[in-house]
C-alpha cells in the first residue's frame, strides 16, 4: 500500500483549508506536507494530535490519522496514544494559548517524561481563534480586546520553559523560513524523545507582523542567529558578527579576522548541562540576535520504552500472566 514513494499530494486531505488568507499557518502546513514524504514513514503510521485554536485545525488538513482534541490537552491525549502504540509517529500541534496557557502543565510533564513524540507550537503571540485576546507570549503592554490599556503580565519564553522541563530536543523557527522549518521537522523526526519546536507564526488578522522586526528579509540575518551543531555562533549579513561566551554570559563581537573567529563560541546542542541552551534562549531583541534552529538535543531514555521494558522484564521474570492464576492468588479456600 505504501511501497511507492509518497508525494506532497498524498499528505493533503480532502478538507478545505479554513485559515484566514495570508495566515502563517499555510506555510507551516505546506512545509509539513512537503517534508512528510521524505521521512519514509508509511502515512498510516502518522498521527497528528492537536488542541483547540487556529493552529490546532492542522490535523484536518493532513491526510494521515488525526485527532483534534480539546483546549490544551493534546499532550495528554498523545501520551495515552503513544503509550498504547509506541510504534506510531505522533505529532502534536498546539498554539501559544493552547500550549502555554491552559495546557502548559501537560506540556511540561510531556517533556519531562520524554515520550518520543514531536511538538510543534505555533506561536503567534495572540489568541487567534477567539478573535484577538493577548496570550502568554504577548509582549508587555500589548493592546488587545481584553487588554485595552495594555497587558501587564510578562511573556513566557516557550523555549526556556521547555528547557526547564528538561526537554531533550528544543528548537525554534519562523513560519516563513521554509528551509529551516523543513530541516527541523526532519531532525525532530530523527530525534528519539520529545522534540519541541516553537514556530514563530504570523497572525495577519489579529497580530500582524509580530515577528517582522526579526524575520523580515532585510533584518533577519542581523537579528537572528541560526544554530548549527559544531559551528561557531555567527550571524549578520556576511556572517560578520559572532557571539562570544564567557563567565558573564554572551556578548556580540564583530568578526573581522581569523582571530575574531576563534573567539566565537561553537554551538554545542548536546551539552549535558541545559544551562547553556537556557542562556541562549534568553538572548533577545534588540541587544542580541534571536537564536533559531536547534538549541538543545540530547539522548535520554524515552518514557514509552522504559515502560515497555518494565512490562517485558515482568513477563520475563513472572512469565506471561495467566488470568486464572491471578484470580486465584491471595487467600483462596474451597467450600
Amino acid at each position, binding site marked *: 500500500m505504501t511501497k511507492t514513494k509518497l508525494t506532497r499530494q498524498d499528505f493533503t486531505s480532502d*478538507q478545505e483549508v479554513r485559515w484566514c488568507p495570508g495566515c502563517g499557518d499555510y506555510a507551516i502546513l505546506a512545509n509539513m506536507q512537503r517534508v512528510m514524504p521524505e521521512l519514509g514513514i508509511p502515512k498510516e*503510521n502518522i498521527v497528528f494530535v492537536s488542541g483547540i485554536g487556529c493552529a490546532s485545525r492542522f490535523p484536518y488538513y493532513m491526510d494521515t490519522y488525526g485527532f483534534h482534541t480539546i483546549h490544551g490537552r493534546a499532550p*495528554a491525549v498523545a501520551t495515552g496514544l503513544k*503509550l498504547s502504540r509506541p510504534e506510531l509517529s505522533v505529532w502534536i500541534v498546539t498554539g501559544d494559548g493552547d500550549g502555554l496557557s491552559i495546557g502548559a502543565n501537560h506540556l511540561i510533564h510531556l517533556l519531562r517524561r520524554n515520550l518520543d513524540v514531536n511538538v510543534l507550537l505555533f506561536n503567534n503571540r495572540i489568541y487567534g481563534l477567539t478573535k484577538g485576546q493577548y496570550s502568554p507570549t504577548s509582549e508587555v503592554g500589548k493592546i488587545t480586546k481584553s487588554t485595552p490599556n495594555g497587558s501587564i503580565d510578562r511573556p513566557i519564553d516557550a523555549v526556556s520553559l521547555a528547557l526547564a522541563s528538561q526537554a531533550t530536543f528544543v528548537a525554534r523557527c519562523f513560519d516563513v523560513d521554509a528551509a529551516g522549518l523543513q530541516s527541523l521537522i526532519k531532525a525532530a523526526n530523527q530525534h528519539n524523545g520529545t522534540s519541541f519546536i516553537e514556530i514563530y507564526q504570523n497572525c495577519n488578522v489579529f497580530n500582524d507582523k509580530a515577528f517582522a522586526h526579526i524575520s523580515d528579509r532585510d533584518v533577519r540575518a542581523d537579528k537572528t542567529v541560526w544554530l548549527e551543531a559544531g559551528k561557531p555562533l555567527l550571524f549578520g549579513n556576511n556572517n560578520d558578527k559572532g557571539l562570544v561566551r564567557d563567565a558573564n554570559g554572551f556578548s556580540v563581537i564583530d568578526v573581522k579576522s581569523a582571530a575574531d573567529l576563534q573567539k566565537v563560541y561553537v554551538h554545542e546542542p548536546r551539552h549535558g548541562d541545559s544551562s547553556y541552551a537556557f542562556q541562549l534562549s534568553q538572548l533577545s531583541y534588540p541587544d542580541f540576535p534571536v537564536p533559531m534552529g536547534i538549541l538543545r538535543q540530547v539522548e535520554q531514555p524515552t518514557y514509552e520504552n522504559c*515502560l515497555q521494558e518494565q512490562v517485558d522484564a515482568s513477563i520475563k521474570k513472572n512469565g506471561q500472566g495467566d488470568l486464572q492464576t491471578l*484470580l486465584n492468588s*491471595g487467600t483462596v*479456600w474451597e*467450600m
Partner: protein
Amino acid sequence: MSDTAIDEKNVNIRFAGDSGDGMQLMGSLFTDSTAISGNDIFNLTDFPAEIRAPAGTIPGVSGYQLRFADHKIQTPGDNTQVLVAMNPAALKANIQNLVSGGILIYNSDSFTARDLKKAKYLENPLETAELLQYRLFGIPMTELTLQAVKNLELTQSAAKKCKNMLALGIIIWLFSKPVKPIEKWIADKFVKQPLSAEANTLALQAGYSYAEVSELFTEQYTVAHANLTHGHYRKVTGNQALALGCVAAAQLANLPLLFSGYPITPASTVLHDLSQYKNYNVKTFQAEDEISAMCATIGAAYGGSLAATITSGPGLDLKSEALGLAIMTELPMVIIVVQRAGPATGMPTKNEQTDLLAALYGRHGESPLPVLAANKPHDCFYSVLEAFRVAIKYMTPVILLSDGYLATGADAWHLPEIKDLPDLAPIFLTKAEDFTPYQRDPISLARPWVKPGTPGLEHRIGGIEKENGSGNISYDPDNHQQMVDLRKNKIDGVLADLPLPEILGKDQGDVLVISWGSTLGAVATAVEQLQTEGAAISAMHLQYLYPLHNGIKFIAKSFKYILIPELNTGQLWKLLRMEFLLDAVPYNKVTGQPFTVTELVAAMRELLAECEKTYDKHQPLR
C-alpha cells in the same frame, strides 16, 4: 453456649488500635482463618482521617471489622459483639458499637494516665460505670509480649510490635480456630528475617496459650461451616476486584490495557494493584492530574488499547470536559468513580452515593453515556467486565460507580472459571470500501473502531460536531439534531442487552424497595428479614442507572409503595421520577456511614405500617 450477646451463627468482631499497632494485619490474618475454616465473611476497614495523627490519639485509631457466619451474609454487620481494643483511644472510638453484653478485650497495659489523656478520657473508663454492660477481659498484652520474646535479641520497640500477634493468638483460641496456618504465614512472610519470624510466632503462641490456660475465658465459641455453593473462594476488596476486573477484561478482549489515574483516596489502590500486573500486558500511567489521566485514556482508546481510568468525586469533576470529547469521538473506555463523601474535599475517607447525578449530567451539552454501579466488593469484578462489554460494543465511554465502602470492604468471592467469563474481543475495522469514520452499525449504532496504523483508513476525528457518516465538521442544523438524537439512541440501545432487574421476592405486594450500588447488601438483608416475618415486601436492585429499564415502571405499579433508600439526598429517587414519573418514598442518609440493617428494617416497617392505613399514595412520608 448460653451467652446472649454472642450468636454462634454469626459473629461480628472488631480490632482497634493505633495505626502503628498492626490492626489491619491482625484482622486480615484472622479473616483468613475464618474463611479457610468455611465461614462466610464480610469485612470493613476503617482509616479515620487522611493524615496520620500522633500515636494514642483518637484520630490515630485504625480499625478492622470482620463478620463471619455459618450462612451467606451480605454486610459487615451493624454492631460489634467482640471488641479488641489495644489502647484507650481505640476503646473510645469504638465502644459505642459494641452490643450490650458484648465481649471487650483490652490491653490493660495501655490504660495508663498518659494514654488515657491522649485519648481525652477525663476518668479511666475501667473505673467508671460506663463499661458495666460489657463483659470485660483486661489482658496485659504488652507485658505478655515482652515476656514471650524476652530471649530474643530485640529492641524494646521491635518486641512491642509483636503484640498484635499476641492478641491474635487469644482470638484464635477464643473462636476455636487453628493456629497452624498463621504460623505458616509468618514463616513465609519473614523467610528472610528469621528473628522477626520467631518473635511473631512466639507472641502468637503466647497469646494462644494465655487464653487457654489463664482461665480468663470461661468459654470458647465455634461458628460452623457455611453452606455455600461448592467451589474456590477468595477474599477480595472492591478495589482489588476492580483491578482484577481490568486485567480480566484486557485478557478477554485480547488487548493490552492502559490504565491511567491520578492518586486520590479511596481510588488509588487500584492503580497500585495494577502497577504490579505488568506481565499481563498492563501498563499503568500516573498522570499529572485527572484531566491528563482522562485524556490519556482517550488517547489509548483511540490507539486501540483497552483503556480505563479511575478517580473519586473531585477528579470526576475535572474529567468532565474530556468526557464530552470521548462521547463526541465515540471511543470505548471505562471511567471508574469510587465515590467518597462530598462536596468539595468533603470527608475523603467516608462513604456516600452522591455522585450519581454528576455521573449522569455532569457535562455541558447533550452528552449521554451508560452509567452502572457495583454492589458488592466482588461484584466490582463483574461490573468492570460489563462496563467494558458495553463500551466496546457501543463505542462509548462508560462510567462505573463504586464507593469507599466497597473499595476497602471485602467479601468472599466464589471464583469464576475463565471459560465462563464473556468474550470481549472487539472487531477492528481494517479495510473498507468507501470507509467513513462515522458510518454506523445499523443495530448497535456504533461507529467502527479503527486503529491508527491501518493503511487506507486514515481519517480525522475531533470534538466539533460532525456530519453523520463522513465525520466532516458540520454546522448544519439538521445534522446536529440527527447526531444529538443518534448519540442518545445509541446509549438507549444498550437496553436491548439488559434483562429486567431481578426481583427479590414476589412481583407484587405492599412495598418494593429499589436500591443501587453498595447498599444492596444491607437492603437485601433487611428485606429478607421482613419477608421471613411474612411482610409483603420485595426488593429490586438496579445495576444500570442509565439507561434505565422500562420494565421498572411496570413492576413498580404492582406495589402500594416504593421505597428508595440511598446514601444521598435522593438521586435515584429523582431519576425515577424523571424517567418514569414514579412517586416513590425516599429514605436518605448522608452521614458518611453505610446503612445499618436495623435502620433499614425500621424504615421499611414504617412504610409497611402505612399500607395498613388508607393513605393517599401521593403524600410523601418524609
